[in-house]
């Protein structure tokens, strides 16, 4: 009896103790109890609070109600095998709450066995580790992003212009893969077309391709206005787009676009394009931190493309200026050219008309007629070559490099300018070096330089007494280079001007634009050569330019 009573007290005490423990546990942990079939038989308040389900919604359900899709099937198979075999399972599980939010728990699941040694129920004691997990994930994300940004930045360091395009596409690919996007597009304003033109695109191989030559003009007015206004924008689903964006919604729907982030590209304070990222497969939420990172990417890419655009523009301007110069030079020598053309034309006409007269009167031998025709052919070719040279000089064709002999170039220029020298009443003394090595050059550009230097020489000698008016043009070779030197006996160059004579807008001529010599220098330096001027003893000036014969850069002025 006493024993019974004691046992009763003990039982009471044990029950009380168990209840206390359970209360303490409920305060501390998330608890769920599941029957052997996996149905939930008990959840504590903390479990309900975290999963956001009411108790009655959970009881009788199995744990799949919380499945986040994060873990593989084998993960859960392993878990079940462990506890079904009567072993304790420890691990971390990512669950999905009723409202769709994810949370992580660290769980210990203890199987309780019946007399036959089979599981009677499973008690899961869990702790919420969402915050630690998130912090860890964010840190990993951040590190990954920083690595990515560093990699992308390094792609663009000291990148030559012709490799910018492939670097841009490389960056797009890395971003799309790292962020799980489906597509990245890059749009630019061009001079040829209105609106933005698609210039770079990378997308996952299995995604529907964008239509070729897609342009925003007339297609995406709202997007275009946003971009040109320098505003970035994003949407997670097409429903978020405003009413004005109805045309966009239509286009995006046709292209299967679900979510988008678009960032304008800016150089020198001006928008010149945009970088866009798209989700096609699923809708996507854009996190603030993520947007900030992608803006950084847009800046890196924008800088590279902006630099490329500026250099292309500059190159174009330089070419236009060079063309203008050639046309201007042509103007200066046009009278000489008219002379060069009219001479052969006059001979051709008189020869042909003489032949016609001879034929009409029957007083001509075959030999005489043959001689006339031969002369006509020769003069015709002469006229044609004048036109050919002229066309080559004024034409806007790209300046291809070819193997050139400076002797030939000088000879051709002297032929072209023959009339000019006569007009100026001066003598030209060419001195050609024998067996001059060849150099790789744009023929027309070098001729342009020679013409410019000769015109300068002619103009410098306007005041020179006629008997002293000579220009010597000389070619010679040195180790690794060939040189053209032009001496005149004109007014020379004031010593203080020598240093700046090749700078643009410096002219010693009245009314001169001062562009000639700067263009000459640009041409020669583009050929890895050097050009210099000096004053001659006894008056006059000397200009010389040297070009490498091996394609390597020549050093500074000796």
């Amino acid at each position, binding site marked *: 009896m006493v024993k019974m009573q004691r046992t009763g007290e003990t039982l009471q005490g044990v029950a009380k103790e168990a209840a206390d423990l359970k209360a303490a546990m409920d305060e501390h942990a998330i608890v769920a109890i599941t029957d052997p079939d996996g149905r939930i038989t008990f959840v504590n308040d903390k479990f309900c609070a975290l999963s956001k389900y009411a108790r009655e919604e959970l009881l009788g359900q199995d744990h799949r109600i919380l499945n986040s899709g994060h873990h593989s099937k084998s993960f859960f198979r392993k878990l079940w095998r462990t506890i079904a075999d009567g072993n304790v399972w420890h691990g971390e599980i990512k669950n999905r709450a009723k409202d769709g939010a994810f949370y992580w728990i660290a769980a210990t699941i203890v199987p309780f066995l019946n007399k036959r040694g089979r599981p009677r129920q499973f008690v899961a004691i869990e702790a919420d580790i969402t915050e630690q997990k998130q912090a860890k994930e964010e840190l990993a994300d951040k590190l990954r992003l920083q690595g990515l940004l560093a990699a992308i930045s390094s792609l663009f360091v000291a990148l030559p212009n012709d490799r910018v395009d492939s670097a841009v596409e490389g960056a797009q690919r890395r971003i799309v893969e790292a962020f799980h996007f489906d597509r990245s597009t890059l749009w630019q304003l061009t001079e040829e077309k209105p609106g933005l033109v698609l210039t770079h695109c990378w997308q996952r191989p299995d995604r529907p391709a964008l239509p070729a030559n897609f342009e925003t003009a007339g297609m995406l007015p709202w997007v275009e206005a946003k971009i040109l206004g320098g505003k970035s924008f994003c949407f997670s689903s097409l429903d978020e787009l405003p009413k004005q964006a109805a045309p966009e919604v239509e286009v995006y729907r046709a292209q299967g676009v679900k979510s988008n982030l678009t960032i304008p590209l800016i150089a020198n304070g001006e928008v010149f394009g945009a970088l866009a990222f798209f989700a096609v497969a699923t809708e996507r939420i854009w996190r603030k931190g993520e947007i900030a990172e992608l803006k950084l990417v847009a800046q890196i890419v924008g800088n590279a493309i902006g630099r490329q655009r500026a250099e292309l523009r500059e190159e174009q301007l330089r070419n236009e200026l060079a063309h203008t110069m050639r046309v201007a030079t042509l103007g200066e020598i046009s*009278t000489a050219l*008219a*002379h*060069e*053309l*009219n*001479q*052969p*034309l*006059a*001979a*051709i*006409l*008189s*020869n042909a*008309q*003489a*032949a016609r*007269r*001879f034929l009409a*009167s029957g*007083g001509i031998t075959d030999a005489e007629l043959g001689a*006339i025709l031969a*002369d006509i052919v*020769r*003069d015709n070719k002469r006229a044609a070559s004048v036109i050919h040279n002229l066309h080559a000089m004024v034409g806007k064709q790209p300046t291809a490099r070819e193997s050139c002999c400076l002797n030939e170039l000088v000879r051709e220029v002297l032929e072209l300018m023959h*009339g000019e020298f*006569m*007009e100026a009443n001066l003598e030209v003394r060419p001195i050609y070096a024998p067996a001059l090595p060849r150099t790789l050059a744009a023929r027309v550009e070098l001729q342009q330089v020679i013409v410019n230097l000769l015109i300068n020489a002619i103009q410098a000698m306007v005041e020179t007494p006629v008997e002293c008016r000579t220009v010597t043009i000389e070619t010679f070779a040195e180790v690794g280079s060939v040189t053209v030197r032009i001496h005149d006996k004109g007014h020379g160059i004031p010593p203080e001007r020598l240093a700046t004579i090749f700078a643009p807008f410096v002219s010693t001529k009245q009314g001169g634009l001062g562009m000639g010599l700067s263009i000459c220098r640009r041409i020669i330096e583009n050929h890895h050569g050097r050009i210099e001027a000096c004053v001659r003893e006894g008056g006059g000036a000397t200009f010389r330019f040297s070009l490498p014969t091996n394609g390597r850069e020549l050093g500074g002025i000796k």
Partner: protein
Amino acid sequence: MQVYIVDDEPSICTAYARLARSAKMEPRTFASVEEFLRAECTDDNACVISDVRMPGISGLELPGLLRRAGRHLPVIFTTAHDTAETREIAQQAGAAAYFQKPVDDQALLDAIAWALGNRSNHPES
């Protein structure tokens, strides 16, 4: 009928000479004013076709030089470098005619005939 052709361009000299021969005239060619002046050319029933711009003495000086030497030869200019200024100087120098190269055969031959006819009609006193 004698035609003296003064031009530093050999192909022009040859072509003009052929044209003269086709019109039954007798041509002689010279590469410069100096060469022509050195040659002993008759002034009877003859005329000169001269270039304007040549190395050495300019063609434009030829009418004056001939006049000062007391010779009576009409000079016809043909030039590949036609400017209003050249044209005016040629006229003042007493050119019989002035043409831009290329010159049409009929125009040149008419000018020769006209110059010679003019000369015979108005002999120098």
